[in-house]
């Protein structure tokens, strides 16, 4: 994927050029207002880019809508409420996430054996959600909602998974659980992932590549061995530069 010269009016992103390889798990770090979220939003299509291109498997999607891009991309938002429909039940949310095409089809969405399948999916979360398929999502806790969001985002096996500080609103323990779950799913499904985080330890612990964004530009891009050598103090030091 390329994002050459992506920029918008306030010039949040300038001359960003990034190639994401298949199977990459990228941690995105940077100070507030650096443009991390803007970068993710531009990729997802929530924000329009004024110039440049976003190539997804050699196809430029820069002019395409969020819903079109969702065939290849999934997102987990920072706010647990954003990623799920609160009035709908757990099962209905999962149906929505299951397939991002044919969303206006006139086929019944309650398919035979579907509930059992969802139960199997939810069991490994160990949150008791498998017994609450009919519960409206608004009655779940923040951690449960976020775990569900994550599961939903990976259900359609996206080519690119975008995580926007998805553990920031959770308590330390839940945050760790969700992070472990993320790592597990990403590794199992071999998902290409971009994750924004403010936790240096998470940025270092997870993923094979680390990118630092400052003033709308990529100032650090390390992967593999080089990334292993970094430590969190070194990283915080780089924020000042």
């Amino acid at each position, binding site marked *: 994927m390329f994002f050459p010269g992506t920029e918008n009016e306030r010039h949040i992103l300038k001359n960003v050029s990034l190639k994401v390889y298949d199977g990459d798990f990228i941690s995105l770090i940077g100070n507030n207002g650096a443009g991390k979220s803007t970068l993710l939003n531009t990729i997802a299509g929530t924000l329009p880019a004024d110039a440049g291109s976003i190539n997804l498997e050699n196809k430029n999607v820069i002019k395409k809508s969020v*819903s079109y891009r969702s065939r290849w991309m999934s997102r987990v938002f920072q706010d647990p*409420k954003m990623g799920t429909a609160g*009035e*709908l039940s757990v099962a209905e949310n999962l*149906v929505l996430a299951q397939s991002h*095409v044919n969303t206006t089809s006139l086929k*019944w969405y309650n398919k035979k054996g579907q509930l059992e399948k969802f139960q199997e999916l939810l069991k490994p979360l160990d949150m008791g959600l498998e017994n609450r398929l009919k519960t409206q999502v608004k009655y779940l806790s923040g951690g449960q909602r976020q775990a569900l969001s994550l599961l939903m985002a990976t259900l359609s096996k996206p080519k690119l998974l975008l995580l926007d500080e998805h553990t920031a609103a959770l308590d330390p323990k839940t945050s760790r659980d969700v992070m472990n779950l993320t790592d597990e799913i990403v590794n199992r499904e071999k998902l290409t992932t971009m994750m924004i985080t403010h936790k240096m330890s998470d940025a270092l612990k997870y993923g094979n590549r680390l990118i630092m964004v400052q003033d709308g530009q990529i100032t650090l891009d390390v992967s593999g061995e080089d990334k292993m050598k970094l430590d969190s103090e070194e990283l915080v030091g780089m924020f000042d530069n």
Partner: protein
Amino acid sequence: MIISSLGQGLLWAPLVIGVFITFRILDIPDLTTEGSFPFGAAMTISLMINGQSAFTATLMGFVAGCLGGFVTGILDTKLHIPSLLAGILTMTGLYSVNMHVMGKSNVPLLTQKVLTDYLPSWATTTQTIVLGIIIIGIVIVALYLMFKTRLGLSLMATGNNKNMSSANGINTDKMIIFGYTISNGLIALSGSLIAQSNGYADIGMGIGTIVIGLASVLVGEIFLRGRSILVRLLAMLVGAILYRFLLTVAMGLGFPPDDLKILSAIILVIVICVPIVRNKLKTRKQLKIYLSQLTEGEQDEQVRSIKRPKFTKGVLSGDRE
């Protein structure tokens, strides 16, 4: 009296279901109602006067409303006009359209056969009720089936969480336009039926319909609660009938017809307040029960602590004897 409000309620029910779709499912207060209701009436009556059958005319009334809703949907989603304003714009525009369709502000039917005339020659109220049941039955079954499809789920998701819906591949603009369209189609269908029942179409018949619709939605939800879509649709039917009944009672108390509009407004205010007050009372009652259980528990503890006062006092106050 009850029988006649039952019949009238059944004819108003499509409007209530239409308002329910925008107001509850899509979470949009849609003022197009005030324009699409007389649009349906105008279309139907004009077509009937020009020799069309009541069936075609009613169907075209429905289609006319769909068009009105479609326009509001485009204004809202594609032109990014706030939904409230979009509704007002379409409503205002439709006033002129309705005048053109009717040619004058009030068009009476002459000898044309209305839908109820195709039924066996029962009493008028019976005919109205039977026709109402047939039509609302079709509407509720069709909508129930629609909400069981992926399309219906997408529509509900869009109204609930737009961000999440588009992130899951739903074209939310399309869904909102679709919602506006069927909603106003149903509202116009109601207008068409009421006009046939009254025997005329009038340019002013849309005034206050949004208040009637919203009040009926809320009344229905007060009397019939549930999460399943079938129960919610049936609640709308109940709301429509009860609302008519409330108005009939008010009229029976001696209010002149001119006061109907202010009565509608007052009823709406009351039904908005009822659930709030009821929730407050319920919470207070449950809190009371909870607190009384709590103090009972404390009393038990006090009894226990009295039995061994020295120990407690000694440990807590540090005053060791």
